């Protein structure tokens, strides 16, 4: 919303391109320059894992923060992406015509026909890009058309995650059951035991994540982005403007699913395993923590939140396993109840305190040099009004 305001109050089309380019440059320096330089291979791989989780978060930010759809079942799409990639790696490791080990151990020793196409890297990548989005689109059309929304949709998507995990476990012969798929040796032919190639995976994850953020940024500022917010806040009103809100929501839901799928597909080689434990109800809710904490409706909030939470979890749970559970619970409670727009809203508050007009959250304060009084009165009033509105919304 504040981003939307920003676009309208400033000569957006000139500045935003610069801003996007600047943002990408900063992110690239941090992710491609600083992080690899200061982190050990182990920590870098860990960061790669967090980036994969952040991809899911970016999608959730779009669907939930901007679209108002509380997606409690993103684990499903994460899992589909992950299993597709994992299966491809298992088949590739087995060699042409070979049978992956788990199919021999738990299954009938043959590759089921519907796994066969995944021997091809092209088919695999296409499937990863298309299947999660396609399934989300179909499901979304089914439920959104019938105006299943709000809590109903949230609970349904959660049940979907539960059912998906049970299905994966139950079909052990072809999915590896609770053990999931693991022990990958190569990623599109590149040896995964080689630290250099692991590093490469990190760069891919970082690049993909940046690309996703850029895509979401463009979407947020497009007419579609405005419409999505409109649907979130007044779905029926949008219907009476001649739109079918179902279609509007489906697009965001499918994009979120696609991002989750890609996140899962990279997660598998980065972590070396994908299992039902990564896709069920609990991990699906877990994806939301970072988004809520970072600021669900902002561009970078979900990304930073997801990375920060994962990092904290790894660090804190080492020393205080039971404390971590309390901490996680408390984070949920405090942030959602008292800081619904996440930590991103703290930044806005802080800027307001200092009398600087609030702007888009991804806008560095320095790019907005206008001091109070330097602009025409009307504009100033407008800014104050916008600020108050936002505050009112936040404390609602």
């Amino acid at each position: 919303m504040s981003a939307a305001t920003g676009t309208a109050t400033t000569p957006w089309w000139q500045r935003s391109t610069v801003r996007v380019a600047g943002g990408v440059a900063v992110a690239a320096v941090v992710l491609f320059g600083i992080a690899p330089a200061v982190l050990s291979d182990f920590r870098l791989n860990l960061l790669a894992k967090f980036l994969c989780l952040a991809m899911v978060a970016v999608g959730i930010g779009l669907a939930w923060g901007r679209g108002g759809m509380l997606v409690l079942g993103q684990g499903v799409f994460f899992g589909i992406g992950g299993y597709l990639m994992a299966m491809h790696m298992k088949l590739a490791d087995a060699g042409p015509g070979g049978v992956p080990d788990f199919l021999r151990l738990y299954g009938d020793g043959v590759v089921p026909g519907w796994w066969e196409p995944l021997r091809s890297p092209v088919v695999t990548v296409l499937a990863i890009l298309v299947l999660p989005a396609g399934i989300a689109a179909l499901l979304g059309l089914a439920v959104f058309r019938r105006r299943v929304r709000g809590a109903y949709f949230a609970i349904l998507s959660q049940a979907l995650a539960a059912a998906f995990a049970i299905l994966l476990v139950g079909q052990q012969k072809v999915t590896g059951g609770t053990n999931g798929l693991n022990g990958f040796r190569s990623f599109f032919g590149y040896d995964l035991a080689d630290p250099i190639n692991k590093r490469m995976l990190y760069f891919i994850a970082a690049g993909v994540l940046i690309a996703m953020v850029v895509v979401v940024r463009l979407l947020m500022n497009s007419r579609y982005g405005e419409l999505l917010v409109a649907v979130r806040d007044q779905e029926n009103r949008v219907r009476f403007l001649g739109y079918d809100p179902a279609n509007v929501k489906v697009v965001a839901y499918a994009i979120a699913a696609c991002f989750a799928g890609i996140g899962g597909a990279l997660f598998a080689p980065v972590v070396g395993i994908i299992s039902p434990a990564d896709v069920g109800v609990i991990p699906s809710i877990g994806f939301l923590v970072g988004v809520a904490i970072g600021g669900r409706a902002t561009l970078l909030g979900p990304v930073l939140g997801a990375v920060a939470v994962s990092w904290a979890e790894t660090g804190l749970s080492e020393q205080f396993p039971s404390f971590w559970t309390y901490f996680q619970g408390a984070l949920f409670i405090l942030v959602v109840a008292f800081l619904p727009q996440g930590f991103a809203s703290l930044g806005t508050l802080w800027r307001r305190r200092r009398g600087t007009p609030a702007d888009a959250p991804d806008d560095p304060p320095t790019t907005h040099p206008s001091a109070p009084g330097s602009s025409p009165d009307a504009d100033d009033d407008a800014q104050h009004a916008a600020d108050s509105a936002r505050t009112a919304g936040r404390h609602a």
Partner: protein
Amino acid sequence: MSEQTGTGEPVVPPDATGGLDPEALEAVIAAPGARFRHDYLEIRDLRVVFDGFVAVDGVDLTVTQGDLRFLIGPNGAGKTTIVDAITGLAPAAGSVQFGGVELVGKPSHKIVRAGVGRTFQTASVFDELTVLQNLDIAAGAGRGPWTMLRRRHVVPPEVEAALETVGLTQVRDLPAGVLAHGQKQWLEIGMLLVQDARLLLLDEPVAGMSQAEREETGLLLQRIGEQRTVVVVEHDMEFLRAFASSVTVLHQGRVLSEGTVAQVQADPRVVEVYLGSGAHGRGRGMAASAAEPAASTEVE
């Protein structure tokens, strides 16, 4: 969140912006009159039943182009339900035709695309979007995916004109949530205009407006009504007397009386309904207004 901003104090005083600008209206509705010639709303035997409760019971209603029709009646008479039924929000049986197109059974967004626009009792604009964005969305139902996925580079002329018409040019970059109540109502009307609705269904459009704003709104509606088909659900009798060209009185889901303001006011059945049930409830204005017009103004 959005509800909260709605109930909060308006940040911008209504007088900070210009009033309505009827001149600019021409730019929006100056379409050839021929476009609207065959537009009329024809409702036949409309019935709406909720879980056994008959809310609308066999209503016939015809509103022609150029008419400014007011729907009145005591609480529970079925006024809003009829509007809901026309726009696909309530389960309807019977026939509702506009411009020769059958609307019953269509999903809401298709009904809207057939040229029907409506507002709601509580102003429902998109609080977090700016005035401009609100209007832009209203104007854009027919846009292709490619246009949708790009940002807005220029303000569409019909949006520009609508801004002028409803006097919100000055505040076009403010979030709609901070507008005063009356301004929100105008914004809604503006949205109907850019949406190019040929049948406008307005549910209590002047509730919460000052006397001057009502005047302006009434004039605006009259001008729109010259070309398009307009149905207004309203309790404000003074407003009704000033601007209605015809009135339909509903009672318990049925049409009680129909005609000009004078005809309806003289109808003994109407007087009886309003006096009989009428010491309470919002319908009291009809009878009372005959004696004491000034007392009839109600604020939602």
